[in-house]
Each structure stands twice: as C-alpha cells, then as structure tokens.
C-alpha cells in the first residue's frame, strides 16, 4: 500500500556561528493511512526538527539540505510557498508542545480556531466562528458558545491544548503531527488529552505522527515507532516488537533504565556517558562512545540500516 507520507533521507542542518548542527541527518520513514507513528528520542535527537521540516517550518539559521518528503505523490520540499501553505493546516496539521504559549493572546479562541477555515476554505468570519464553536464542543470544552469568545489566558492548560487540537483538526487534515502534545501537562490531564487524540483519530481517520520522549506515550498510542539518536533513526518497527525485542543497544538501554524494578532503591541500568555535542558528533556510529557493545568498526563507519522483516535497525551488530 502506498504510504500517506514518506520521508526519504531528510537532512536539516542549522548553520550557527559556532558550526553546523546536523539536527536531522538522513532520516527516512513512512506513515501509512490511519496509522500512528511515533518518533521517540531524547532532547536534541532531532525529532522535532524532523516534524518541522515536513511542514517546512524551519527558519534561519536552519535549512533543509536534502531529502524528499512525499505526501500523496508530491514532494513537499519542491512545492512553492503558496502550494505549501495549502498543505499546512489543511492536509497536514501540527500541534505543538506548549499550549500555554501556542495561542495568540490578543485574539479570541473561537477566531483562532476558525482561522484555518477562513484561510483554506475562504469562509467568512461568522461561519468560521460558528464552525469553531462546533469544534470546541467536539474537543469537549464545556459551554462552547461562551468559550469561543474567551481569550487564551482565560483557559487552563488542558483547555488550551484542546483548543489547539480543535484548531488543527478544523480542516480535517490527513496527517496530524503532535509534537510532545502532553509534556507540559499534568498526568491526569495528559490522560484526557491522549484519550481525546485517539478518539479524534478514529473519528476522522487521520494518520498521526507523534513526537515524544516518553516511552509511556509511545506504548499507549502508536502502531509503529522510530527511535532517534543524534539526527538518525537507529531503530524502527511495530511498537510491540520494539518494546519486547529491542535490537539497538540504545533502545535496549532506554527501556532498561526505567525505574520499574520490583525491588526498590536498587541501582538501575543506565546508559553511560553524556550526549555528544551535535556540532562534533563522533565518527562512525554516533552512539559508539556510550555503547557497551562497541566494536572497532563502530568507530570507523556509520552503520547501514538493516531491515529485519519490518523491524529496522542501524547497528553493526546486525550487519551481515
């Protein structure tokens, strides 16, 4: 089956005065229709930049250097700005991490939710806002008629995230990118929002790209997962498969170091060392300085990605 979105060998670099940061350095993955795909990784691994690159929302000093982002047969990276604008919000929508700051403080929530409708379907303000009210009801904010006239600061964090979701599903996008949608929220609210997202996904038959650092969220939400480390996907596969049978030493380490031992106050497994500087990443496999299985070849040569029957891994241990 044709994937909805196919990212091929995407590279996005940031040209800073200190040097070049290769934030995304050759990332490839597919998202099928009606699928939830997660990108998981620690701070600075490039998962957010990947998402922003898909929508071409990278501003200077960042630049998409190469690669392809195929969406319904079109390479988004080659579209002109006007066509790209038609994609954003309408075909592919994105929810950002911090609901507190992602809404414009001087516009009403209803108006902001209606804005994509005005921009993409040429609706007038009145009908856009009346549709916005329906959307607000849909994301389960009480009293939608009144709330539409509220300003963001009158909303709590959870409600703002709901409003953002309403805004982003207003044009019934085919793909919804959620960049750490619950990180800034409390546990109980987080559960509500994740629940809402899953419900909407089912109703609207939207595919989702979930960006998170939280393995819990990944496990609950996704069908497939890609694990990123320093600009590369090191492992990718069905969620159950990756969790049950992690192949890459990094993935193994991450899962092992969760504080889930039956006995408390015992030492946890951990990945030694620190994240290397993104400006001067290690030669060869970027993970090798922290890898307890590192071999000589790891220091020399970046590993190829190996497809082990839908479970993809980039590690020399598995190369033939």
């Amino acid at each position: 089956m044709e994937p909805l979105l196919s990212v091929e060998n995407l590279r996005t670099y940031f040209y800073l005065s200190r040097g070049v940061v290769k934030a995304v350095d050759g990332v490839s993955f597919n998202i099928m229709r009606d699928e939830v795909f997660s990108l998981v990784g620690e701070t600075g691994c490039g998962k957010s930049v990947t998402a922003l690159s898909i929508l071409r929302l990278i501003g200077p000093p960042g630049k998409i250097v190469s690669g392809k982002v195929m969406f319904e047969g079109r390479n988004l990276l080659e579209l002109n700005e006007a066509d790209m604008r038609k994609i954003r919000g309408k075909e592919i929508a994105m929810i950002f991490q911090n609901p507190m700051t992602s809404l414009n403080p001087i516009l009403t929530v209803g108006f902001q939710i209606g804005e994509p409708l005005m921009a993409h379907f040429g609706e007038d303000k009145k009908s856009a806002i009346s549709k916005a009210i329906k959307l607000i009801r849909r994301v389960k904010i009480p009293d939608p008629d009144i709330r539409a006239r509220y300003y963001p600061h009158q909303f709590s964090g959870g409600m703002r995230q709901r409003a953002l979701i309403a805004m982003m599903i207003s044009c019934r996008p085919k793909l919804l990118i959620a960049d750490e949608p619950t990180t800034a929220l409390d546990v109980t609210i987080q559960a509500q929002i994740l629940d809402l997202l899953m419900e909407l996904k089912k109703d609207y038959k939207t595919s989702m790209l979930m960006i998170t650092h939280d393995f819990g969220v990944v496990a609950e939400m996704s069908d497939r997962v890609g694990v990123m480390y320093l600009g590369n996907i090191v492992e990718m596969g069905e969620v159950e498969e990756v969790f049950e049978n992690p192949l890459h030493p990094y993935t193994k380490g991450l899962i092992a170091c969760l504080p889930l031992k039956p006995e408390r106050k015992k030492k946890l497994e951990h990945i030694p060392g620190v994240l290397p500087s993104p400006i001067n990443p290690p030669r060869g496999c970027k993970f090798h300085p922290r890898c307890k299985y590192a071999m000589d070849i790891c220091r020399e040569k970046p590993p190829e990605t190996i497809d082990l029957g839908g479970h993809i891994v980039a590690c020399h241990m598995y190369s033939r």
Partner: protein
Amino acid sequence: MAGMLKYAVKKIFLGIPAILGVSIILFSIMHMIPGDPIVLIVGERVDPSRIEELREAWGLNKPIYIQYFYWLSHFIQGDFGTSIIHRQPVSDLIFSRLPFTIELTLTSLIIAYIIGIPIGVVAALKRGSWIDYLAMGFAIFFYSMPGFWLGLMLMLLFGLYLKWLPLSGYSGPESLILPALTLALPSIAMIARLIRSEMLEVLTEDYVRTAWAKGLPSRTVIFRHAFKNALIPVIVMFFLQLPWLIGGAVVIETVFAWPGMGRLLYKSIVRQDYPVVQAIILIIAILTVISNILGDIVSAILDPRIRLEEAG
C-alpha cells in the same frame, strides 16, 4: 467605561503625592539657585534700596515654605500666580504656548512612529541582512546627530537655499514640518529599535509558529499575529513619551523660533522665574500622570489579558 473613569480618577488621586513631591523638590531647587530674580532682571541703573522694596512688594522676602504654601494654595484654586519677569499671569504665558508645544510634539511623534515602525519591522524581518543594517544605520545616524546642528542644517537647506519651507516661527501648518522633522528624526532610531526588538521577540513566539502551521498567508501571520502583538508596547510607549517631549524641545524651539513651552521653561529657569517654572513642571507632571493613565487604558483596550484581568 465607568470603571475606566473610576480608575482614572483614582489614579489621578494616587498621582497627587508624586506631583506634590515634584513641586516641593522643584521649589527648593529653584531657591537653591544662587541669586535673586529681582537682581537678575533689573538693569544697571537701579538703586539697591529699590530692590528691597520690590522684593517685599512681590512677596519674595518671606520664608520659602510660606512662599510655597502661598503659591500652592493659589495653584489649587487655578491661580498660577504672576510671573516675576513678565509681571503677567502665568496661566496666560503657559496656555498660549501649550497648543504649539502639543502640536509640535504630537506631529514629531507621529512622524517618528510612521517612519520608525516600518524600519523596525523590516529590520526585524530581515535581521542580519543589508536591509537591516541600512535601515538601522540610517536611523542611528540621525540619532547620533546634535539636534540643533541637524535643525540648523535643515533650516538652511529647505528654508534659505531651496526656499521650500518656512524658515522659522509659526505661519501655518507648513512651518511645522521642519521643527517636527528635526525632533522626529532622532526618535526614529528609538522607535525602530523598540519595534525591532518587539518583533524579534514576537516572531519567536510559539503562537506565531502555530499561525504558520495553520497555513495562514504570510501577510496574515506577520500582521495579525506578529505585528499586532509587537505593536502594543510600542503604542503604550507613545503615551509615555508624550510628556517627556513637551519640555524636551528647548533646543529645537530655539532654533526654529517655535512659540512652545520649552523655550519659556528654559528662560524662566535661567532667570529664576519661580512661578513659571513651577507651573510648567507641575503641568508636565500632571500630563505624565494622565498619559500614564492613557497608556494603561490603551494597553487594556489592545491587550485582552489586561482588559479582562481588570474586569474579572
């Protein structure tokens, strides 16, 4: 709006101690100036005994605090007193000049904003490009120029050589252009700087990114989501600058023989005309309080966060 009114009244009352403070400090400063206004104003052929008589006649021989309370009690009743130098009611001297001052100040501020805001916005959008450098360089150039030199050069160029504009004085709206421009050109840099940094800040805000991600046209993103937000503090700044400029135009008023208050204030300080100085400074202080209130009200109108905080 009733609330606003209530607030304004309250704020003015709160401003009264500050204004009183200003007036007391000023009164003492004026009396600290060595010298005696009468000796200063009269010419050579005056008898020393006559000076004493005048001092008594004009109430200048009383202790300072009595002079002050006398002056204050009259001021409260709307009597600004009599100028020592001009022997005329201070209110006449001031209120005939005030319209000119406000006209000049407002015009120059508006010019500065009209030119400064686009420069700042372009500089912010094109940060680090030659346009940024050029725009800010241009603005800073005028900012670095002594005001009277700029004024005299503009006057000689447009008034004397090209004969495009009136040289000086007030003879209709076109005579406003040169002094207003002289006053405005240096302020452009300030405003451009401010709007630039506001824009830079707003452009990195998450909600601007959200707006891009919604697929809004750039025009909408930049104006509706970035510029509007960046403008709020700049507009509030407008009101805060207003009183500051009123007394600050001494130099420009002198160059262009503009009948404003700055020149009167300057002359009155130099010649120790206490009642005039006191009255002008107090008016400026009151204007400051009023413009602060206006600034608050405007920012409340523009920014729902403040507006609703007050209402709720």
